[in-house]
């Protein structure tokens, strides 16, 4: 018994640790969370070239970019019912028309679509999109090339190192750098 555990525990632990690293890394891998509707940014932002701000309309005026209301979805999908074709959504086959029908169903029931958050900051981080957009940063600089993703996933881990390294590179002068590295800029 005793020996068995001893022998077993080494490979088990190593596997666990390796698995841990795999999942840890997987956060920034090609697999975002599964959404209630397989909404393709690739079609909307890529093929249709809808600007990000059209749906995330508060990005320049507030801390949160906002996600579109169901009404906004219906603004287009009132008219666009979608082709009755199969589509390869990140390796999963979906029927576009069927999926758009789901949006119309949410609207008909006056229910919100429970999207799953992809990028987030903990409660003690007060990040504001407005300042970054006004400074002229492209959405893609933090969010990656969303226009080429069907299912959106994280491309950056968005930890403090990520923030600070960008702040350090972009500060205009030492005073701004001091401000951009100041804890109270984000933590309060």
């Amino acid at each position, binding site marked *: 018994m005793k020996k068995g555990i001893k022998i077993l525990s080494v490979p088990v632990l190593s596997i666990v640790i390796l698995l841990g690293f795999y999942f840890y890394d997987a956060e920034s891998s090609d697999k975002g969370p599964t959404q209630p509707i397989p909404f393709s940014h690739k079609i909307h932002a890529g093929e249709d070239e809808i600007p990000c701000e059209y749906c995330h309309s508060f990005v320049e005026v507030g801390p949160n970019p906002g996600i579109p209301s*169901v009404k906004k979805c219906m603004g287009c999908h009132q008219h666009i019912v979608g082709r009755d074709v199969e589509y390869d959504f990140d390796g999963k086959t979906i029927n576009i028309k069927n999926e758009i029908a789901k949006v119309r169903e949410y609207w008909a029931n006056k229910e919100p679509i429970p999207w799953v958050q992809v990028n987030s900051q903990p*409660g003690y981080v007060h990040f504001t999109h407005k300042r970054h957009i006004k400074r002229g940063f492209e959405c893609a600089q933090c969010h990656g090339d969303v226009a080429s993703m069907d299912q959106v996933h994280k491309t950056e881990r968005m930890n403090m190192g990520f923030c600070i390294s960008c702040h350090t590179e972009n500060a205009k002068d030492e005073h701004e750098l001091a401000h951009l590295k100041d804890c109270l800029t984000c933590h309060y």
Partner: protein
Amino acid sequence: MSEDKKGGIKRRDFLKIIGVAGGTAAVASSCSEPVEQLIPYVIPPEGIVPGVPNYYASTCRECPAGCGIIVKNREGRAIKIEGNPENPINTGSSCARGQAALQGLYNPDRVRSPLSNFNADKLQPVGWEAAQKTLTEKIEELGGSGNIVFLSNHISGTLGKLVDEWMDALGGKHIQYETFAHEPLKEANRISFGIDKIPTYHIDKTNYLLSFGADFIETWLSPVEYTKQFSKMHGVKDKQVGRFVHVEPRASLTGSNSDEWISIKPGTEAMLALGIANEIVSSGQSPNGGGGLGGMLSQYSTDKVSAMTDVPAETIKQIAKDFASMGPSLALGGGVSVTGTNATETLVAINILNYVAGNIGDTVDFGDTLNISNVNSFQDITSLTKSMENGEVDILFIYDVNPVFTLPKQLNFKDALGNVKYVVSFSSFMDETTEMADLIMPNNTPIESWGDYSSRESVNGLIQPVMSPVFNTKGTGDVILSVSGQVEKLNGRFTQTTFYDYLQNSWKEIWAGASSGSDFDTFWKDSLEKGGYYKDVSARPVSISGAVSSVKFNEPEFVGEGDFYFMAYPSYRYYDGRGANKPWLQELPEALSTGVWSSWVQIHPDTAKKLNVSQGDFLSIESSEGVIETQVYVYQGIRPDTLAVMIGQGHTSYGRYAKDRGVNPIDILPMSTDERSGGFAWLSAKVSAVKVSKSEQFVQTQYTTHQHDREIAQAISLTELEKGIHHDDHHSDADFYPPREYHKYRWGMSIDLQKCVGCGSCVTACNAENNVAFVGKQLCAQRRDMNWIRIERYFEEANNSAGFQTRYLPMLCQQCGNAPCEPVCPVFATYHNPEGLNGMVYNRCVGTRYCANNCTYKVRKFNWFTYKWPEPLNWQLNPDVTVRSKGVMEKCTFCVQRINHAKDLAKDEGQDVSDGAFKVACEQACPAEAIVFGNLEDKESEVYKQSHDDRGYQVLSFVNTQPGITYLRKVTQYEESKESHGTKNHKDHTG
């Protein structure tokens, strides 16, 4: 330690497996973050940008003053109340009660839906339709007799009008009841000037203020407005200060801010006022030569008055001299101490004093009178109670009043209520009166409803809903209109179906009267934006009536055989008890005692010795009407022959925060009235007091009243102020390190101790803005209260008639340039930021508490637990501030969220933050405008100027903490005696 007999697993192996399994779980769980959903709007509401607040102007209804407020709304929830700068009453400030209105809105003990007893004993939830149907049926059934009464508080606006009309249509009566209705003030003005109104006063225009019991900083008429005016008058301008003398048997919070507190024999204020008037007239100092009253006044010779009032003749002469010569002057009369059986006479005497000194029409304004003048008198309430008792009331509506709690027991309102056939309460809270109702139709709070309120001629305040109702409640105006639509008799009586339409219709009259030149919609929108419609009302010339000479000034009558006069005084935290269900107010330390969550009796040290009690012991106080038992607070600011207990506690209902806490002193007051006005005589009991064998810790937040020579709250004498003060150089030469340099901003603050009155608005405002937890009495007793800002109060020996002087000092994180907390933090969770703030990074803190231990000012608070805000109190939390959890240190960082917000807005404009662009929460609330916040790097800023004032000093600066807060010394107006403490400069503390 081998394998056990059943062949099971050994302890050691078990631990190993658990270790591996636990490790696996830990590694696995650390990788996947919890799934957070993003729920979009189905249809987005107009004008809401997530993360960006909206502000709505409205009117505060926590007391009859009716201040203008601005409510901050984030994502559909009201999260902060601030004063509305547009409103002429409070011009931007607010009081603790106003701030705490949010805890009424989100109170977990609100009535959550209509309740009906359906002829059973228990109130059960019903739907609105059923409730309205029940009410309609009851009106059809019982309404024929016309024995219907609508008992409300002072509702002066459109709702009052609607209720009047409704009662007219039903043949009923509308009675407005206010606990403090100031009947004697009205009656005295009728006798003196032929106007039975309550005037407005212009304290700010005076140089000398003499108050007879008027607690204008606490509850009297319009406390925020008068505190602001007082601070203008009493603050330092051109090296001069106004003088304030307070006459009352006890030094109330207002009295403690006086330059001279005159401890008068209870009930003899009329004599003193006449004595002073006589002194003015007989010494030829009256500008109108006494206006023919000289003969009448001559009976009140100084010596005679002195003997009657216990006020030394010298003092009377001095007051008379100053009152006449330091004009414009003003004598105020009000509050419970002058409201005895001779209240009207006392106030007539005070009117005479104002008259002979030439103050009428100057600092007393009968043009812009208060509408509280129109509420029903105590006599009306008495006769209502009688008719209820006799079964002559069939339906009684209760709106926003709690007479079972606020009326004296002897009136038997509670029993009379039992004789009413059907009682309907519109209260949103289950209080002592509402719990006896047959039907409860909970009203929206003012934050959830449309309405208006006019506290005075010049102001029509609008009330607008800032959010949709938290619970299943409905505006009473809407209920009345909807029920009226169903009652046959009232068919077609009201053309409007919603109260909003009714309100707008009623405002068309105001619009017509305003002749603004714009159309109604513009006028309406403009009024909504400004919080109401404000107009100028010109002063009305008044002259004294001959009737005053025929007034006989009687001695007051006291009921009871005891040795002590008994004062039940309104609390500035709970008013008449309505504030007691708000934890912020319960945990706001009372200024004089710093006591929290409780009741106590103020007792003079000599009396305490005589009764053999000390602080924390319980005293049994017996009047002719009953007994209360409460804790002793020994206080030198009360006469030895007087005991005082504040009103507001002692609820037997009213939710978890109010229930079974302290005592209600109204319970032992006799049913005496002021003879002339019929108003309730608050000061008419004589009580006996005996020690009982019970003693508990007196729970307070500051256990010392002395500075122990630390010179924390400093003062200078008036002569020193005039001569100019020698300045220390803050010991910068003693510093080993080079001074810190700042670029663009160094945030700093100045606090003027001459202006601070200790009211605690800043404390509550800070709690609201910064998600500061309330912890309850037990944890307060263990010194674990969390308030980031506290009002320190010290009683200094002084060479004045009271023998002491009270000093208040708001203490908060000093944002030290050389902070003792910073170097001891092992994880750099606290540090000096480039803009002069002492940063506190909650997510870094590991809770060693070294910082708090090393803090010179003891302003750091530690989260011993994860404190909870019971649902829905947590809806109030400010999303811009992290909610701290167990094991984390917290403290003031000058509302850094507001600083960052202001910088963000300034950056949008491509500018730097300008002076006055924003205010921090405590500064914003402060009615005395004692706190100034700003950028010390900007030499033009107000805070820079204040911080370089002659009176400026920094607390404990000899420790070389280099605080970012500069205090401005209080100015003492008595001759400084050699042994008085804390009035010296701090030279002797170098090295």
